């Protein structure tokens, strides 16, 4: 059974003139226990998609989907309150810039304690305070923070970014979620700290069978930690498949370009030569191309590309392109 199954999810920005389709009919499926990467440039709508799943977008965004199943439950049939109850119980999210995501005037301990699930506490109300404290300290231990006494008393600005991100993960763990959405959890972090956070996420996935949706702009880094990858471009679905499929045999010209642009993936290239890049830059929201939004930049684009392509499925490797690169691999 799929953990999450989203079909044709669109997100519109309501502006004073006309609505802008920021995310255009994106598909996303995840199995239980899977680590899936969601890759795309900044502005490709990956954070929007994640926030739409968790339901924290404000009123100026309008979300619509053909199918939104959570563990077999059709969430589209439920009222917003019921949906929020299910999602906030089973899905947790961590953000980039962890320090900005913690209340600057409340101590870490208090913020952790309020994240603790009431249902996990037993006993009378005078015992609960103490239990909350213990639960908070346990959570800190789970994410590998040993100096819990110092940490609980601190305010967010007194900790480092990496510690704050660990605290955010600890809060996310408080409700024992089935799915953790990590929105660029290591942006603006040193590489040693990045490694620590990714290793922590990987161990949580293996030990607690927690699924993780890892959002990143760095395809090469994501491949180390994920089983499957979904690629997005400018709010459109590009390609999805296992990490090997995406990294070794991408079918979509955009994914090909992403892989080619990373130095590790093509060690064969001679020294000091230029890396492959696509001409131009990602279109702004006010001037989106029709059809496949990669069209103006795509090396394989033809007249047909002004119509949005249908998704083709090759043994679980999905690609949204009229002219996939499938035949170029022998």
């Amino acid at each position, binding site marked *: 059974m799929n953990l999450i199954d989203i079909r044709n999810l669109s997100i519109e920005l309501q502006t004073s003139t006309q609505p802008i389709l920021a995310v255009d009919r994106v598909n996303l499926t995840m199995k239980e226990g899977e680590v899936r990467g969601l890759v795309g440039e900044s502005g490709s709508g990956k954070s929007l998609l994640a926030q739409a799943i968790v339901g924290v977008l404000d009123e100026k965004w309008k979300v619509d989907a053909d199918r939104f199943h959570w563990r077999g439950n059709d969430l589209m049939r439920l009222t917003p309150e019921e949906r929020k109850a299910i999602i*906030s119980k089973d899905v*947790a999210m961590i*953000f980039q810039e962890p320090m900005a*995501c*913690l209340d600057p005037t409340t101590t870490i301990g208090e913020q952790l304690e*309020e994240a603790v699930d009431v249902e996990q506490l037993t006993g009378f109300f005078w015992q609960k305070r103490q239990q909350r404290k213990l639960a908070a300290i346990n959570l800190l231990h789970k994410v590998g923070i040993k100096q819990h006494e110092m940490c609980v008393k601190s*305010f967010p600005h007194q900790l480092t970014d990496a510690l704050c991100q660990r605290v955010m993960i600890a809060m996310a763990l408080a409700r024992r979620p089935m799915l953790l959405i990590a929105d660029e959890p290591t942006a603006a972090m040193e590489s040693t700290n990045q490694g620590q956070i990714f290793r922590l996420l990987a161990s949580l996935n293996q030990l607690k069978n927690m699924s993780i949706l890892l959002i990143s702009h760095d395809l090469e880094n994501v491949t180390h930690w994920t089983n499957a990858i979904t690629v997005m471009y400018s709010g459109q679905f590009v390609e999805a498949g296992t990490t090997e499929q995406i990294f070794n045999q991408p079918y979509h010209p955009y994914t090909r370009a992403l892989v080619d642009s990373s130095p590790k993936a093509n060690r064969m290239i001679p020294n000091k030569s230029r890396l492959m890049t696509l001409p131009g830059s990602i279109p702004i929201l006010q001037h989106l191309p029709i059809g496949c939004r990669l069209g103006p930049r795509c090396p394989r684009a033809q007249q047909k590309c002004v119509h949005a392509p249908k998704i083709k499925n090759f043994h679980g490797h999905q690609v949204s392109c009229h002219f996939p690169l499938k035949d170029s691999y022998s």
Partner: protein
Amino acid sequence: MGLLKTNMLIFTLRRFSLFFFTMWLLTILSFSLSFLFPGEQLINLTGEINASPEQLAVLANEYQQQANLLTQYFSYVSHLFHGDMGYSMTSHLPIMTEIINRLPATVELTCVALLVAMFFGIPIGFCAAIYHRKAPDNFILAIAMIGYSIPVFWLGILAILVFSVQLGWLPSAGQISLLFEIKHVTGLQLVDILLSDSEYKWQAFQDATRHLILPVIVVALAPATIFMRLARTAMLEVLDTHYIKAAKAKGLTFSQIIYRHAMRNAVIKVIRDVGLQFAHLITIAMVTEVIFSWPGIGRWLIESIYQRDYTAIQGGLIVLSTFIFIVHIIIDFVYAALNPLAREPNHGT
């Protein structure tokens, strides 16, 4: 914890150095006023208008008139430190006595008005932000606009006309009814009543409160509307931050988010501006004191200006500015107590 204490010490020292330099500038201003006002500088400084030439010679010696300007200034400051601000030109009482008699009434009026303005203004502003761009928001904004635009002298007279003259609910002038005899201990009427052992203590307290209501409302109205708008903006800013979004993702309900996270952060943002508004509030209070015959320093100062009592103007200026500045510093400390970020001396990492 040791680090926190040194941070707090540095914070306090900074505030005191600021206090010192502001006082220094204030005394320079007040001293130069004695030259700028018409008439003899020595008489402006001391207020001895009927002194004989012999007495004037003694005073000139006391204020070191024969020495250079700097020495004159220092002898003026040392007089100030000894609590000698000269004599009032009209009443011939020492300025210090006049001020000690009148300042507490102003302190009482302004502090109660400030608290009332904050107590009503800030929560109403939060309501407006929570119902952003809906009917309550527009209604509150309109009320705030009207409240801010009403001139205080007109509002005061209208309040007297309606509530004292026509309806007869509240007294129109003074601090307390003449029937009650309250011993002067701190000068703050309400505190003195509570300290006194009169058997009509509670009646006196009620009476003083009734006298306080109208002037406080008149003084508090304009600042309250400013606080409404400040609180609304602060709350909107806070509701837009990442930590509110993260709290939503954590599964907290909207009211939990407002009470636990948004309110505290928004209040901190508002508190920072309260000090600035206090000077504005004092100005309003001075006009209100005249309208309600409130025996405060503001009314006394305005009367002194009418009567060209230069010594009183200098003294009143120093005392009122000092009072505003002390309140400013107290609010800074409250801000630091609420906001952990403000306690740090610098924000480098």
